[in-house]
């Protein structure tokens, strides 16, 4: 018991929670934005992989870290554009196009990476983002080292969550995006353009997904390896439901999820001899499924989610 308490009371755990949560925050916010406009983007796993690869590659070739992050966002946006073209303009099945983009983006990531970086026993590395201590606040006991010594993208993710919450629920633009997701025909009648709104939401959302992937290679690790996203994109899709399509709750959900993940990592060191390590690794995936089962019935799905919109066609 004391071992468990020590884990929870350690500043290291809470610092890890924020670090683990960051890619999930980016990805979930991106998916929230996209789904609020009425389009499911199952391409997230692939877009995150591509963002991780291209961001790393940019920095490896001499760009600075912020440029790397920007490149990842642009690449994510491009895949978003492809997704928008297929689902909004052509009205294809959002399930299947998303899966197609995931398969295409991840295999393209591996291809480009292998093309530039030949197989070696030790993968080449970059110098990643370093933690920044917020002056004054990081000197606080416990909270300082635990929460306020993160790398810049983590702070950025939290700021973006706040901005997205504000834009979605406090501005006319946010209302328009939500209308496109609830009832595009009514939105059209109001003089709005659901097609353009959906395009915008998907592209910006996918850019956020790309940044979430880039966090992995530019902050969390310093190299790229093919299976590094490891289902984080799919967990984001589950977190969207858990968050009831709200940015604030997306932030909370990602943190809660990251807490369990960080906790199980440390629990392994205590219980590792008694329980096979695979059990611990299963926990994040099982938790996501449980979260979906608990929240899905209560959640209010955007009414037009997954419904293609064509002018004059019902």
């Amino acid at each position: 018991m004391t071992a468990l308490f020590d884990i929870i009371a350690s500043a290291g755990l809470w610092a890890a929670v924020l670090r683990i949560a960051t890619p999930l925050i980016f990805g979930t916010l991106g998916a929230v934005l996209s789904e609020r406009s009425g389009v499911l983007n199952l391409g997230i796993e692939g877009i995150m992989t591509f963002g991780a690869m291209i961001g790393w590659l940019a920095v490896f070739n001499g760009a600075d870290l912020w440029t790397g992050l920007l490149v990842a966002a642009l690449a994510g946006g491009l895949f978003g554009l492809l997704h928008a073209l297929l689902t909004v303009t052509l009205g294809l099945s959002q399930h299947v196009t998303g899966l197609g983009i995931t398969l295409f983006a991840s295999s393209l990531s591996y291809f480009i990476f292998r093309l530039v970086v030949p197989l070696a026993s030790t993968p080449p590395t970059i110098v990643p983002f370093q933690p920044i201590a917020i002056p004054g606040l990081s000197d606080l006991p416990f909270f300082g080292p635990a929460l306020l010594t993160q790398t810049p993208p983590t702070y950025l993710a939290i700021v973006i969550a706040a901005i997205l919450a504000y834009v979605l629920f406090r501005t006319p633009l946010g209302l328009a995006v939500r209308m496109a997701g609830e009832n595009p025909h009514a939105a059209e009648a109001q003089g709005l353009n659901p097609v353009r709104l959906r395009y915008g939401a998907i592209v910006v959302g996918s850019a956020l997904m790309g940044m979430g992937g880039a966090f992995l290679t530019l902050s969390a690790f310093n190299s790229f390896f093919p299976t590094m996203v490891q289902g984080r994109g799919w967990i984001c899709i589950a977190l969207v439901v858990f968050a009831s399509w709200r940015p604030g709750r997306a932030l909370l959900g990602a943190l809660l999820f990251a807490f369990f993940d960080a906790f199980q990592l440390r629990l392994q060191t205590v219980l590792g001899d008694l329980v096979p390590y695979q059990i611990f690794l299963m926990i994040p995936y099982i938790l996501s499924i449980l979260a979906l089962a608990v929240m899905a019935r209560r959640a209010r799905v955007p009414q037009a989610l997954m419904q293609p919109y064509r002018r004059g066609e019902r």
Partner: protein
Amino acid sequence: MRLERRDHRPLYLILLAPVLAVVAALAIAGILIALAGAPVLEAYWRILASAFGTRLAATETLTRATPLMLTGLAAAVAFRARLWNIGAEGQFYLGAITVAALGSSALSALPAPLLVPVLFAGGAVAGMLLLLLPLWLRLRFSVDEVVTSLLLNFVAVLFVSMLIDGVLKDPLAFGWPQSLPVADHAQLPKLIARSRLHIGLAVAVAVALGIYFLQSRTVFGLQSRAAGLNPDGAVFAGVPLARTLVKVACISGGLAGLAGAIEVMGVKGYVTTDLSPGYGYSGIIVAMLANLHPIGVIAAALFTATMFVGADGMSRALGIPTYIADVTVALSLLTMLVALFFTQYRLRR
């Protein structure tokens, strides 16, 4: 310019769509090959030669096509009823490990004609159960099965990893995590001597024909189609939606589990965590390329296997990463979606 719905879908367009899709995917992949600095036509020629140029290569390609046919059918059957089974990879592994467990147990004392069907059934049931869980979550809690079936892939692979590192670990494998081997007489006979090609291929083709019969000639086939086309309308017309979906899930998950079983019994004889190079995920593409048609799955699986086997040889010869195969196959899924769209719509000025 605007899009206009066609009054009817001409048959020649439906047949042409997969061909155009593959050509378009190969053309885009050609740009990537050119950017990588290799001669494009020679690259394609090497792919074809490496996949079919020798007897060994051809049997290898057919061996790779076998699990792809089964996972492709698993996806095609489910997608047709709009049951989004993205969990074939996990179902494959669960089927495989079940066969390793049963085939190395006291049960293996059974004679081959009894043991082989028992193992097939065991693998299929394991795959079935893994898909019934997401379906239950959908019917009971209205949870979208895309994410749940997919997340279970990770759980299944970790579960297999735990077993082959634990109770099912082969003590004779020099410490490598691999499962106990299935009994020798449970291994599938070869179709062609001195190759890896086994009768699993014949099983997969027979299953495809069986599914075709089921879908085109039975009430169940009609019901599963109706469930996919318009679930509300289907319920109104008296289709028992939940029961139909359960049947579809049993077939889909069962086929993915069977694919794992056959891969163990036909090729390796034991299970490792790299038994499948993504057969479950590639099955989705195979199904889409076949336009969810069971006979089309045979051709689509052959195309996909050709790319995977051929790219290895091409990669060695020209120094292009072998991932170009995955890129091309994934691209063909996207181009197929667009091609299918234009069987339904046309561009008008």
